[in-house]
């Protein structure tokens, strides 16, 4: 993307019908470190790569619990992500207090999308620079949504966002048809495999990734380091034997909904 005379503020259209500031905000998501999500009928797993700035510092928190039945993984400007997580937690808690019932994730996602849209239509605001993978349960089962800075949201069986997410998406595209009936543990294994794809050869260990699970009868929680390392060890050995080419369940077709391509991109419509 190159600088042009239509990209100064968010309320200026380009002659081609694009809002460049919104597209630049989506670039910020692509530059952030990877986050992935996948779901079965009853569980959703979120995972992300957590690289600390230096050995001295701790890594940034990219997965947030929003309520017992909803969690979110972010990529992009983590400060924006933190603020939006606080908004989501507030909405959930208010709904729970009034109705003694969990807020359906589908409704929370729409409220989040409407909030993002406002920032694309006010001259004194800027779009949120963060993409959110929202995992949650409601009456109709397990759901995974992607909210982007443009104010659009899509539902996914599996998705990946952030830098080098294309590698994870390719992995997920090949196997997503089996996810619906996967067991919880297989789902976590697939999540770890997908995270590994984004590391491009670097060793996967629990200190550089975070995994969280939510499901029917299982409140949202982040898995602790030992559990994650055990799962990595369990399949890493199997992974070497399997080899990169032999995938036991080959599947065709792409994700449902639009997938954001890296490079020059018209915004998600």
């Amino acid at each position, binding site marked *: 993307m190159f600088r042009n005379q239509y990209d100064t503020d968010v309320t200026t259209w380009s002659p081609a019908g694009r809002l460049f500031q919104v597209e630049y905000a989506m670039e910020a998501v692509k530059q952030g470190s990877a986050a992935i999500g996948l779901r079965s009928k009853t569980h959703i797993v979120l995972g992300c790569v957590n690289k600390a700035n230096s050995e001295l510092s701790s890594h940034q928190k990219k997965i947030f619990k929003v309520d017992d039945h909803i969690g979110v993984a972010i990529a992009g400007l983590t400060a924006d992500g933190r603020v939006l997580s606080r908004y989501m937690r507030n909405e959930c808690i208010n709904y729970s207090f*009034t*109705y003694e*019932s969990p807020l*359906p994730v*589908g*409704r929370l996602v*729409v409220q989040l999308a409407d909030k993002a849209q406002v920032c694309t239509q006010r001259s004194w605001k800027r779009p949120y620079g963060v993409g959110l993978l929202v995992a949650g349960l*409601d*009456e109709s089962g397990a759901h995974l949504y992607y909210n982007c800075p443009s104010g659009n949201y899509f539902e996914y069986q599996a998705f990946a966002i952030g830098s080098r997410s294309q590698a994870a998406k390719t992995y997920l595209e090949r196997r997503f048809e089996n996810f619906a009936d996967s067991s919880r543990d297989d789902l976590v294994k697939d999540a770890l495999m997908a995270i590994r794809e984004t590391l491009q050869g670097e060793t996967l260990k629990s200190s550089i990734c975070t995994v969280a699970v939510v499901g029917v009868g299982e409140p949202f929680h982040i898995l602790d380091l030992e559990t994650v390392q055990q799962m990595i060890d369990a399949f890493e050995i199997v992974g070497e034997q399997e080899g990169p080419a032999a995938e036991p369940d080959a599947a065709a077709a792409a994700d449902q909904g639009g997938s954001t391509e890296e490079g020059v991109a018209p915004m998600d419509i």
Partner: protein
Amino acid sequence: MNFTVSKQPENCLLGPESDSQRTLYPYVTGTSVVALKYKDGILMAADMGGSYGSTLRYKNVERMKPIGKHSLLGASGEISDFQEILRYLDDLILYDNMWDDGNSLGPKEVHNYLTRVMYNRRNKFNPLWNSLVLGGVKKGEKYLGTVSMIGVNFEDNHVATGFGNHLARPILRQDWHENLSFEDGVKLLEKCMRVLLYRDRSAINKLQIAKITEEGVTISQPYSLKTYWEFSAFANPAQGAVGTW
């Protein structure tokens, strides 16, 4: 030193001018509502009377209404406040339906919403002068709860408002059991309503029984209960105490 009282804003509910802006006493009231859980859902009964003080003025008041797909609301107390509550719930259900997303508010959610409304009004010294009974079935789960005008709320297998608490609940405590059939449930409710008819001065002999199951709500046509006034104890009431009535 300044001894004058500072002027309160007019929308404040304390102070001398405030009485015209808040509920002080009820005017047209409904009497007891009785409800119980049975095999397929909830049964609720209420008479159709609207009393104006001690006058039994209105005799065609429907005090039970369906709410959304899954709930049934019965009310005693001020009828105009009940109508106001129905308007709030109408808005609530409308916005819930507008999401059009497969999720819907069940009886538990409606009950809790009403509890919040009643309690918040009570805190502002401007109550909705009602005792509400909220029953419903959603995904096979039966729910029956009550909220009072001061925000006291709870769930139980059988509930009642007003005089029903004193006259009907003891009968229900003795005769209610799990998985009542529809016929047994109706008989039990009629037993309670008959006692209320005999003993509650504001009860009238024209009642409706409402049923809510997974399929939906049915409210019966109004009908009356058979009463018997020939009990020997009533034959000569002044016998033992001259001058009594």
